[in-house]
């Protein structure tokens, strides 16, 4: 098979499957009928738990036993959290934390 056509097929398959995963709950529960209460409950309480999961996911490759022991990651998070707590300005906190992290890993903990 021509490799251009095969690439198109791969992209189409990936697009369809990715949309399929996102569509899945609506296919199961979204058709007019009533959503079971337990699903509504899960929809309400999953976000804060998933947020923590995403944070852990982002930090999953941090190794505490070797230098720099996760210090850049956790120091940047701590500074951002404290800044946000004090200033209530989330953009300031997010940008400061990120710039600090970039400085840490590019210039300090190299």
């Amino acid at each position, binding site marked *: 098979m021509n490799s251009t056509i095969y690439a198109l097929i791969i992209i189409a398959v990936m697009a369809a499957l990715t*949309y399929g995963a996102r569509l899945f*709950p609506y296919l199961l529960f979204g058709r007019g009928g009533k959503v079971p209460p337990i699903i509504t*409950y899960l929809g309400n309480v999953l976000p*804060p738990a*998933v947020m923590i*999961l995403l944070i852990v996911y982002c930090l999953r490759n941090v190794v505490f036993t070797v230098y720099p022991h996760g210090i850049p990651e956790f120091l940047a998070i701590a500074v*951002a959290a404290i800044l946000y707590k004090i200033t209530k300005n989330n953009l300031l906190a*997010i*940008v400061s934390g990120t710039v600090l992290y970039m400085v840490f890993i590019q210039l300090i903990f190299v």
Partner: protein
Amino acid sequence: MRHAIAKSFPITIPVLLGYIPLGIAFGLMMENAGWNIFWALLSSVAILTGTGQFIEVSFITLGTALYEVILITIILNSRMMFYGLSFLDRYKEIGPRKWYLIFSLTDETYALLTAVKPPEGVKEKDFLLAVSALDHSYWIIGTVIGVTAGSLLKIDTTGVDYVMTILFVVLAMDQWKAYASHEPVLIGLVSSVLSLVIFGPDNFMIPALILITVLLIVRRSKIEPKVATAESTSMDSGSEAGMTIGADPVIPCPDTESIMVTSDE
């Protein structure tokens, strides 16, 4: 709608800061592998998933067998099946735009939409569309820059993807305040760390999500009464933040990509 986009834009700036560099990295990889702007653009418009698209580059370059493409894509995206649960009710009355909102729900968009409330004077359904479309457009813009001019950029962006991690932290702080029960947060923490220790960094997401779901169901009788009574009051408690941050989230996580960004440089 223009008003909704202008008002929602500040909320999406952290995602902009993350998606543009990641999009550039993806565009660069496509270009390096010999695929032009058509292919890069097609991927970012039609697939829209961080990790998946980085793997896609090797799929289409190597001509990977379809069954393998299917298997890996399903595994990578299975967490998305859980995200939609938080929008079943919200998407009921908003018309056909819901098909686009469902399509464009990345990890980051999920995080924003579940944790942030619409700004004053913006309709909920316009807010949902504005945030989703803005985030999607950042990914596309980054891709185009990467595939056309990426090799000319000489800035060291190593670490910029950490913006997503800190965004999640800030959104988690908002949710801590907005939710009357902190048990979902603790369940999320215990399940994630336990899964990470048992299954390792490459395979822990799905076991963690299953464990979270099971524990949330087991503890339902304790959590639900608190959350239900607090729903109305949480509206006010979140609004003292600089931007209105509410209670629903969506995201593609950047870690694997960041590794590739680094190796590109």
